[in-house]
Structure formats: structure tokens, C-alpha cells
């Protein structure tokens, strides 16, 4: 063997050793950035708004164009196995309009708003004389599972499920209740058929004995549906109220509420429902407003698998306290959380139940104002550890308004603020855009309506891209 051959062998051995060592030390290159996906130039979407069909109720679909181009809208209703003729409309950028669902041609059905060329968001507003008012977001995403953390079958505190099938195929749903004792199946709602292009109202008291508080788990075994829940408070001789909520599609480990207030009379509840098969340990943290004394933290609340727990906020905070609320599943088991507020009198007369926000965002869109006036407040919470500022603008039927006094509103770390938007609304529906500098900001709207509605309505915020 020649010298050069020996050298080659040595080199080979060295390379092998280096390779083995190199594998340990050679760092992985960062993954290449994913290619930007091409999109079609147009944005098109549909918003499905299940609304109640009661004669005394008037329902509106309020749409805001958050894009930079005019949106072409088509309003129509679905129900009774058909879709009504679309009513076209054009919506300028950064503007809001509303349509009375009763004018869309189908009385017993859901309103649908299609938009083209620009992204929009739609909320439904329900006004029922002598009963109350409510608002809820519409959804563009039909799903196969819908969850609610609040419900009741107690006489005078009725819960209805508004199940819309906007598609041309049959759908089947099954409903189970998440009670304090655990899950309760409703045998007669196991494979409940929802006809194509229809809205079905399910009165839960017809299927379950009286229970004052439970969660609801709606599973769509076939098809795609949109499910909302209408709660109607009408006790004999007591205060009345109306609450409309769109179900949430999946549980989450963190929920954030901005517009809480412990009423002087009545009760504010944090309803927790655990649709999973593991126990959740939940911690509730409050963010106080102004100079009020910071509330103490609650201890962990166990929520058994398939069970429901209602936490009275008045046990934790003084009545009259305005606060934000963070619900956190400390063991990571996802849950559903809602804040339910019922007041017999005073500022919080009426009923409301609203799901919190699960996403984090720096920009939020909040439905505010109603077609019949009233007062409107905007609650903003800073859950972060540093003070921040937010800018609030309004999208009204006349276009975007940027009040100078709302251009830079300070929000302290771990604090909540309330803003009165009534002066800027002119008695019409609008949408508020809250822009923060961090993702720690969450907003929520609350509207108060006077006679003949005498109710308040909470509007959850939606994250904006």
C-alpha cells in the first residue's frame, strides 16, 4: 500500500468521524418561508343570521364594509325550503347599512347577506317590543358542531335553538345538555332532521325538564348548519329580556370578556361548560376599571367532563363593579365560557348572555348602535403587563368617523376602560374599530335600549385581520 493510499484511508476515517460529529453539530437550517399564496382578486362571503320568527320581534341585518372597495351586497332569506329573491345593494367602504329581515320575503327563516368585492361583517339585531333587544354576530362559516355555555328550561327563562340550514341538503343534529350533574342526552333530539333551506326553532323546555343552568352541545351528524341560541327572560311579573348568541364552534382554553358589570340587583354569572371528556381546572381573573379596588383572583374552579358550572361574580366582586374577565383553563382542557347578566331594574335591566373572545388581535370590530337609537358603550380591556393606547374609529352609514378624542385612549396594564359612543352614532347602527398597539387588548360593546324594549344587549368583538 502506497503512502498516498494510506493517506486516503486516513482521510476516509477522518471524514467518517467528522460526519458522525457533524451530525451532532450541524444546525438545521430554518424552514424556508412558505410561498405567498395567490388569491383570486375578489373577496366574497355570506353571512348567515338566524333570527327569531316571533311576530312581535323585528330583526335587522347590519353589515359593515371593512374593505377599501365598495361591496356588492345581496340580501335574501332562507326558510320554508326555499330562498327568496336576492335584493342587491351597494355598500361604500368603511360604511354600515342595515336591512329589515322582515322585508326579505320569507317570514320564518334566516337572513343571509352575501357580499362581493370587499370583506364585510354582519350582525343581527333583534328588537321585540315589551320583551327586549339583542344582538349577535352572523357567521359565514356553517359548521358541524355548536356549543353554548348558557341555557335554561325554567319557566319564564326560556331557551330556543335557532337552527338554520342554508344549503340544499338535509342535515341532522343531535343535542345534549351539559348540566351540573354531567351530560344529559336528549333522546328526541338525537337525529333531528333539518330540512334544506330552512330554519328550525327548537324550544328546549319541550325536550328537557326544568333546569336553571346548563350548557348546550349541538352536533351535526350530517350536513352543515348554523345554530344560534335565543334566551327569553319573561317571568311572571318580573323583568323581561332577550339574549341572542351565535354558538361557538369549538371550545378553547382561554376566554376574554371586556364588558362585565356586576349589577346592583340581579346577577352576573360566568357560565362554564366542559364538552370534553377530561376535567378542566378553570381560573377566572378580573380586570378592574378606574380607581376601583382590584378584585382578588378566584381559586381554580373544577369543571367535570361533560358538566356545567355557573360562577356568581357577585361573590367575588362588589356589586356595581365594571370589570373585564379572563377565563383560563389552567390544565389546558378546552371549555366554553359565557357571561350571563340578568338585572331586574336599573341600568342593567334585562338579560344578556355572550360568549367571550378566544383569539388575540390588535384590531377589533364591535357592533354598536341600533336602528332605534339607545345608548352605546364600548369596553376595552388591556390584559397585558404594560400600559397601552388604543384608537377608536366608527363606521357609520355615512362612512368612517374618527373622533379626535378617541384617537389615543390610554388603557392601563390589567385595567379596563369604558367609552360612551352614543354621541357619535346619531341613533343608527354602526361599528367601532378598536386598534391597539399590542395583542393584549380586547373590546366589547354594550347597548342600552329604553322603552318599549327596556333591555341591554352585548356585542362581542371580532378580530380584524
Amino acid at each position, binding site marked *: 500500500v502506497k503512502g498516498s493510499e494510506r493517506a486516503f484511508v486516513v482521510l476516509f476515517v477522518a471524514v467518517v468521524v467528522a460526519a458522525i460529529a457533524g451530525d451532532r453539530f*450541524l444546525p438545521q437550517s430554518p424552514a424556508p418561508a412558505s410561498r405567498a399564496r395567490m*388569491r383570486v382578486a375578489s373577496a366574497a362571503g355570506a353571512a348567515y343570521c338566524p333570527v327569531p320568527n316571533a311576530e312581535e320581534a323585528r330583526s335587522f341585518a347590519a353589515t359593515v364594509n371593512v374593505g377599501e372597495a365598495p361591496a356588492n351586497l345581496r340580501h335574501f332569506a332562507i326558510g320554508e325550503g326555499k330562498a327568496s329573491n336576492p335584493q342587491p345593494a351597494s355598500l361604500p367602504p368603511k360604511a354600515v347599512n342595515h336591512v329589515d329581515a322582515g322585508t326579505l320575503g320569507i317570514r320564518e327563516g334566516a337572513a343571509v347577506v352575501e357580499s362581493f368585492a370587499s370583506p364585510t361583517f354582519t350582525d343581527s339585531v333583534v328588537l321585540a317590543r315589551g320583551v327586549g333587544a339583542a344582538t349577535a354576530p352572523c357567521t359565514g362559516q356553517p359548521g*358541524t358542531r355548536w356549543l353554548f355555555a348558557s341555557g335554561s328550561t325554567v319557566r319564564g327563562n326560556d331557551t330556543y335553538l335557532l337552527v338554520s340550514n342554508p344549503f340544499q341538503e338535509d342535515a341532522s343534529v343531535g343535542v345534549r345538555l351539559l348540566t351540573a350533574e354531567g351530560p344529559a342526552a336528549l333522546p328526541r333530539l338525537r337525529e333531528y332532521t333539518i330540512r334544506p333551506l330552512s330554519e328550525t326553532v327548537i324550544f328546549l323546555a319541550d325536550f328537557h325538564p326544568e333546569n336553571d343552568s346548563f350548557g348546550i352541545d349541538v352536533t351535526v351528524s350530517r350536513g352543515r348548519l348554523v345554530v344560534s341560541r335565543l334566551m327569553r327572560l319573561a317571568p311572571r311579573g318580573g323583568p323581561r329580556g332577550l339574549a341572542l348568541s351565535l354558538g361557538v364552534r369549538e371550545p378553547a382554553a382561554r376566554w376574554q370578556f371586556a364588558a362585565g358589570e356586576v349589577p346592583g340587583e340581579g346577577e352576573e354569572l360566568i357560565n362554564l361548560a366542559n364538552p370534553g371528556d377530561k376535567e378542566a381546572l378553570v381560573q377566572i381573573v378580573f380586570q378592574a376599571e378606574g380607581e376601583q379596588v382590584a378584585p382578588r383572583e378566584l381559586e381554580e374552579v373544577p369543571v367535570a367532563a361533560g358538566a356545567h358550572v355557573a360562577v356568581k361574580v357577585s361573590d367575588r366582586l362588589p356589586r356595581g363593579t365594571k370589570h373585564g374577565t379572563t377565563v383560563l383553563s389552567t390544565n389546558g382542557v378546552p371549555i366554553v365560557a359565557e357571561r350571563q347578566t340578568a338585572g331586574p331594574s336599573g341600568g342593567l335591566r334585562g338579560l344578556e348572555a355572550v360568549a367571550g373572545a378566544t383569539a388575540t388581535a390588535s384590531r377589533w370590530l364591535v357592533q354598536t348602535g341600533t336602528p332605534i337609537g339607545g345608548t352605546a358603550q364600548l369596553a376595552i380591556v388591556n390584559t397585558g403587563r404594560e400600559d397601552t393606547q388604543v384608537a377608536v374609529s366608527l363606521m357609520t352609514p355615512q362612512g368612517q368617523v374618527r373622533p379626535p378624542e378617541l384617537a389615543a385612549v390610554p388603557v392601563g396594564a390589567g385595567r379596563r376602560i369604558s367609552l360612551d359612543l352614543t354621541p357619535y352614532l346619531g341613533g343608527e347602527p354602526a361599528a367601532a374599530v378598536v386598534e391597539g398597539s399590542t395583542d393584549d387588548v380586547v373590546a366589547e360593546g354594550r347597548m342600552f335600549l329604553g322603552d318599549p324594549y327596556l333591555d341591554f344587549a352585548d356585542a362581542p368583538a371580532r378580530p380584524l385581520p
Partner: protein
Amino acid sequence: MSDQLPPPRILAVVVTHNGERWLDACLRSLAAQTYRRIDVLVVDSGSTVPAEAQVREALPAAESVRLEANVGFGTAANRGLEMSRQAPEADFFLFLHDDVALEPGCVAQLVEGALETGAGIVGGKGLAWERPEVLLEVGMSADAFCYPFSGLEEEEIDQGQHDMRRDVLFVTSACMLVSRTVLAKCGSWDGDYFLFAEDLDLCIRARLTGFKVIVQPGARFRHVQALDRSRRGGLTPTDVRFLTRRNRSRTIVKNASLPRLVPLLCLFTTLAFLEMVLLAVMRRFDEVPAYPRAFGSFLVTMPDLLRARSAVQKRRTEPDRRLRRLMIHYIPRARILLERQLREWERGTLRFGTRTISKVTPSAIAARFSAFIRQPATVTVLFALVILVLAARRTLLGGPVAAGGLWPFPDPVWRLLADYFAPWRDVALGTAAAPPAAFPLLGVFGVLGLGNPRTAQVLLELGLLTAGLAGMSVLLGRRTRDVPARVLAIVFFALAPPVRQAVETGDLGALALYAGLPWLMDIVLRLLGPTPADRQERPPLPLTPTGTVPSVVRAALISAGVVALAPSAWPLLLLAWAMFGLLSIGGGAPPGEGGPRLGRALVSLALVPVLLLPWSLEAFRLNGPVLAPLLGGRGPAGAFGPLWAGYTISEGLFVGPGIGWLVRPAALAATLGALILSTPARRREARVLVSVWLVFAALGGLAGAGWIPAPAATPAMWSMVPLAVVAILSSHLLAGLRHELPRHAIGWRHVATPVLVAVTVAGALATVGRAVGGWKRPRATAAADVPGRGNSLASFFASISGDVGTFRVLWIGRSWTEPVLAGAGRRSGASFLLTGPRGLTMREAFLPTPAEGDRRLESVVGTMRDGAIHLSGHLLGPAGIRYIVADRTDPVALAAANRQRDFVLDQQIESAVVFRNLQWVPRASAATPELAAAAGGAADLDSQMQAQWAPGPPLGQRSQARFEGPVPPGSPSILVGDNANKGWMATASGRELDRAEAFGWANRFATGGAKGTATVWYGGKWLRLTGVLIQAMLLAMAISMARRGVRVAPQEAAEEEPGGPE
């Protein structure tokens, strides 16, 4: 014969050219005729020895005319008639060849036949010159392309079986009685023919003018057929081929009616192409130029030809169908060729071009096979194959594999071949791009599998694995005769981790490279230098100079086969050959030889795109399947990305990922042993091999870590070169132990070598043990629809199999797009898959380069996933997408599909939710006014989505690229969903329709109120066929060149037989 009229006067015109051997007999036979009113004219057409003296001696009364040059039969006869004194007096002309001898009553019989039937032309019964009992002709027929056909068996004995006067298409000019009226009305011989087919032309012209052509079997004559049997000289086979092809095309053009003319000429040209290919395959290259020459001559004489045609058609009184009754309606040439081959087979020989292989009798074949099967090399391969089959049993049994690049064959399997010949393929959004060259190869397995898709796939897998083992056996056979050494190496090569990974991931590309690499390395290593061998009596094997070019071409052919199945193998081979070449230059190649050696190796790869034309025009683009994995960006993006992510340098060094702990020291031991302990020649080769191996390992590790692009589609493919290297090195080591250690003194090598061999053997045995346990079966992708594997999508496909109309299925979601698109090596970012109605098959294995329509589809799906659209059915429908399958494990995909208002939920199954698109437009369909309005606003997507249009009725599909159907009243347009390809055409009511783009990926044809049947088709069939023919010719030439080396170097050829040189 009439008693009142004198018998007609006959002028016998004998045309002679160098026929002195037979002319005497011919003239004497004329003198002996019982019919007495005969004058004889002998026309000497430029004979070397003038025939005049011979005529004077044999038949003094005959008139003789001498032409200075050979002008051909027709012209000579015409000139003779012009110059003859007796011609004006004649009632009939008897045209004769000079190699014909008439029986005494022949002319009388001919005249009798003419008078009794009123025929314009009469022929007789031709008999063989030496054996008059053998029939040569009793009237002739021809096929549509004017190929003459006698209807007789070869050497058929005349027993009177054809003795019946009858109408025939033509009689030969060897002995032909023609009435004066025929020549007056139809014209005389066409002098432009020179030779061959002029008799057919004259007879057809006579028939078209209304004359009969009959055969009078009583008129017997003997015929030498001197020209046909090459006994006359002067004409080469090429000349004969040129004249026959040219004259047949001339006859067709002159005489066929206009409706038949165009298709006949097209078919004639195609047949001529095929004949050229066949001649090239049979290595009769000298005859190939006759075709272009004939075609050129045909074109040059076209003006005259058209004038002649005009004259013929003016005189025509009979339709073609009268003529066709006398023609044969099949092509007899194939049958005749087959019969000849069978006769040779019976004689125990097989003729292939100029080669004749003897002793191909069944017993000889059995003996040869018996010897082959007993060879150690064969036994070794079979042994490894058994273990390999045992290891891969889970893959080979059960349903078809559907993973990576190995997908089920389509049912029926001939779809692959149909796709190959089709001008337009309906894969993805449809493409006119040349189909992949893999289709014919895969189609072969379909045929071998007797049309069963599963059998075809098993045969493909087994075939590739067996080819790899056989190749390795040959490669090793050049280096050692030691059987244990070869067994050890083959076991390594058969059962190493990359092979297992290829089988377990359905990696067709890696398997193809596995099959071809040993053969290629054998050739290329020999091109680069002598191959080391282990015995003095078997010296190193350099390549003979005469074998160099064939070896390069052989390497190119094998590379082409590998690249066809594994496109990204081309850069890999390029790197390997370049390194081998450079290292051999640096390793002591003789001065001045290194460069040429390297060049030869690289030329073999450079020829690959040429051999794979026209597919290579697309495949070798930067975003084509050959280079896309290499240029796909940093890191293990794209093909088989997850597999690349785990690839490390040490894995590359130790023959691939997932290697057992025993194999690592085995690979190391084999390498060290080959580098230190073997003979100098082996050590030299080992250094080259190991150097390449190290580079491959380093590059693979860097790719695995994400620092460079993945250099090949899959890590298994990349590991094939190191695997082959280790196999060779292990054989070097063991062969060295058994044959090359010094026997006169014991030294350290006697200790070290057995130790290293023991470690190597232990490693090899470890692979056997692991393999016998059975390799995993590839995880099937649902998109491939594998029935019987618990895949409920099979029932979905079964349920839609009866759906009317052509449609596509869009798959969105991770669980099928990732494993499938990874195999495609492109579209790594795509989250969707588009297949035909039967799911994913091998037809989609080689997707065309994305075109505008694909990008649009990608954007629609991307927008769906972003939640920015809810009426995507409107945009997908015009592309023919009828079903959308959403992956349950991909919540984004499922939510996107759920959001679409124009989807209807069709089925919910375990792994997917299937939606039906309400806005589906059949692949070719009439469009309603609303749809047409939407289509017209192609740039305005909002209008398309907002338009309330409904799909129109589909047109019936006649073939892959042809649709027909009535235009419904009020349909303003017809839509064809594909890549908006410009090759689509449409007619309605005989009018061509205008085309405009619609929906970005559909073609729209405005009917303009036309009624009746609409036809939509894709043009370019002839272009595609021409491409196929060119490719076939290139391959045939390459095969021929490769085989030529075998003939030149028989010793070398014998060594290349599978199983080695023993």
C-alpha cells in the same frame, strides 16, 4: 371467333433490357403460337449488348427497335409503338417481358377471351420458369395502397384450381393483351413510372373508363420474374423500394376519387413511416433513404401528376366502388411477413435483418435455459430475489400500492398507452404537453399483466427489483468470479435500507434508479477505464474501440429508461458520472484519455433528452420534473420532504436512513478492506468509488439539514449510488480474501481481512434477518382509491361510476395531497389534488408543468382555504370539477368546503366529506345564456359568482379529445373545460365556431345561433403521431447502434448476458 370477320391482328411488343438469357426463348415461343396473325416488335431498352442480332436469329420476321438508354418498361413500349410500322394495323397489342415464354396456344386463348367477353385487357396464367407446375399469377389484386396481391400460396401447385375466366383488378405487364380501343381512350403506358406498378395503373385506368380486365387461365406462360428475383441486375433493393413506393403513391393520386384520396394518402404516408421504423429496427438502414427519396420525387412530379389525374378523372365513367370490389380489404404484407418468419422458425433459424440466428428450436432453447439457470450468478440473483420478495411480501400482496410515486395502474391499463398517443391528455386540467415517456414503459407492464392493474403493478415492482439485482450481478461478474463475494454484495444491494425505504414509501423513482444504476455503472466505469478483475487468466476488461460508441448509446438508452420513470435521477447521474470521470482523470488515466473518457460518459446523459423527445422539451425546463426538485429552493422542501428532514451525513455514509447498528460497521469494514487489503487495481477503483460516496453523503446530509436543496426527489434515490458502491466494495473484500492473499507467507493481511470480512458478513446477515420479518407496506393515500384496504372512498367512487358526463374530482386536505404531491416532486405548496373520476392512478404520476389554468385553480383553492369565498363552485364548475373531497383531518380544508353555498354535501365517510358541485359544467357542454354571460365576463370574478347560471347539457364523449352532441335551442355557446388550450376546435352545422376564453380555464365557442350537431375536438393528432414516430425512430436507431456493438464484439456481447461470463 367470328367466322365472318378476320381474326384480329396482334402486335406483340417485347420490351427487353439485358435479357439475352431469356429473349431467345421468348421469341421462339412467339414463333410457335397457333394464332397466326401476330407481328412482333422487340424494343431494346438500352441493353448493354444490343438485342438486334439475337432477334434476327430467333425470329427474323420480327421488327426491332433500339433505344440508347434504359427508359423503363412503359416508355419503351410507348416508343416502340410510335416507331413501329405495324402498330397502326394492329387490333390488339400483346405486351411481353423478355423473360416470358408463351405456350403455343397462349395468344389464341387471350384473343378468345378478349373477343368473347369484350374485355379491354386480358392476362394469362403465369407459371414458374424452371418449375412450370408452380403458379406465379392468375390475375392480380391489390390493397387500397396498391400493394399487389396474387392470392396464391407460396409455391402453389397448379392443379387447375384457378382455371376460371374472371374479372380481376389487373394483370401484369409480363403478358398483357390490350385492345387498341383501350389505348385510344385511356392513353398508353405512363412513362413516368419507369418500372413497377405501371400495369396496375393501366388496368385501373381502363376499368375507370369502363373496360373489363380479365384473366384467361388457358393462356399459359412461363415467367422468370428476373427483376423481382434480382436476376437481371441494375437495380438495388433501395431502387426497388423507391420505385414501388413512389409509383404506388402516384397510382393512388392519379386514380382515386377525391373523397378517398386524402385519407388514403395520409394512411399511405403513415405506413411508409412505420416501414421506415421497421427497417431501422431490422438494421436495414440502406433502404430507409428510399422513402424520403420517393416522397421527394413524388412532390417534384406533382404538377405533372395532377395533370395526369385530371385527364384520368375526366375520362372516368365508373365509381371507385366498382374497383374496390376487386381489391382486397386488408393489408396482406403483415401476414406474408409473418408466414415467412414462421417458415424460418420451422427450419430452426430466426432471421433478424441481416442476422440469422440458428438453433432456436425448442430443445435448443430449453438446453440454453437449463445452462443459464445453473449458473452461479443466476442462482445468486434468484437467491437474493427470493429473500427480497419475502421481505416485500406485504407490499406485493393485497391491494395495489398507492403511495409516493407508485400509484395504481388505471383500469383499463391501456389508458396509459392511449394517453401516450393522444394529442390531449385529460390529467389535471388537461394538457397538450407531450405525454411522459414513462407511459409506454408502464404500458408494457400493463400488457404483461394481461390488463389487470394489480398484476401490472406487481410485475412492475418485481421487474425493477429483478433488473437491479441482475445488473448488480453483471457488474460484479466483471470484477470477480467468486460466487460468495457476489452473493455477499448482492445481499447488500438487495436488502439495504434504501431499498426497503423505496419499497415502503412506494418510491417509483428510487426503484427505477435501483434497476438501472448497476447496468449504467457497469458501462460507465468501463468507459472510464479498465475494470479490475481477480485472476490472471481474466485480465482487466477495457472497452474495445469498436464497442465505445455502442456502449455510450447503450448507457444513453438505459439512462433514458431510468429518467423516464425517475426524472430527477438525471442530475444525480450527471453528478455521479462527472465525479467518476474527474476522479479517474486524477487517478492516473493515460495522458490525453481522461477528457475523452469523461466526455463519453457525459454524452450518454446528453443523449437522454434527445431520446425522450418531445417529452423532454417540457421535462427539462427549470420547473419541470427533472430539475424542479434540485431548484426547488433551500431545504428539504418538496418531494418526500419529511424523509429528507431526517437524513444525516452519517446516514449517507452508512447506506441510507434507518440502518441497523450491525450494518454500519459492515459498511465501514468493507470500505477499509477494499481500500487497504485488495489488489492495486481494486484499490484504485475503490478510491474512486469511495470519493464519490463521500460527496454524496455530504451533500445528502446538508440537504437533510436544510442548507442546500434536496439534490434528488427522495433520499432513497440519492442513496442508491452509495449503496452500489458498498456492494462493490464488499465483493472486493471477500474476493480478495478468497483469491488474492499471498499463500507463501502469513502476514497481517491474513488476520485483518477475515476480521473485516466477518464484520461485513454479519452486517449483510443482519439485513437478511430484518428483511425476512417483512418490510412495511406503504401507507396508502386515500386519493388513489384502493379498494379492500378499509378505504371507504372506494364505495364513493363506486357510487359515482355511473355518473354521466366527464368530470374531475378535487381533493383538498393534507392526508392525501402531502403523500401524493410529494411524489410528484412539485407543487409542494399545493393543498389540493385534481384527479379523474376514478381517483388517483398512474396516469397522474407525471403531472404536466402547471399552466395558467392550474395557477388559477390553485388561487381559487387558496382563497377557499383563506375563507374569502363562499361560491367557489361557480369558479370550479367550468373546469369540470364535479366532486370535492374534503379531508376530515384538515380542519381548514373541511371548513373551506363547508363554507361553499354551491356545494351540496354528497357523502360523509370516515376519512372525508364529499361535496357535489352544483355548478359543475361537463367537460364539453352547451352553455345556457346565463352561463354564457358569466363566461363572457371572465375578468370579472364577482360577476361570475353572482350570475345565476346553470350548467348546460353535456356533449357526448366520442374519444378522449372529441365530443359531439346536438346544440340545444338557445344555447349561445359551448364550453370546454381544460387549460384554456388553444388547440380546441369546434364546428356546428359545418361551420367553424369562434373561440374566446371563459372562466380563465375554459374554452368557449360561440354558436352564433347554429343548430344541428356540434363537434368539439382537439387538433394536433398528426403532430402527436409525428412526434411518436420521431421518438420511435430515434429509439430504433439507438437500439440498432447499441446492438451493432454486440455484433462487432461478440466476445463482449457474450459477457453481457445476464448471469455473467461463466
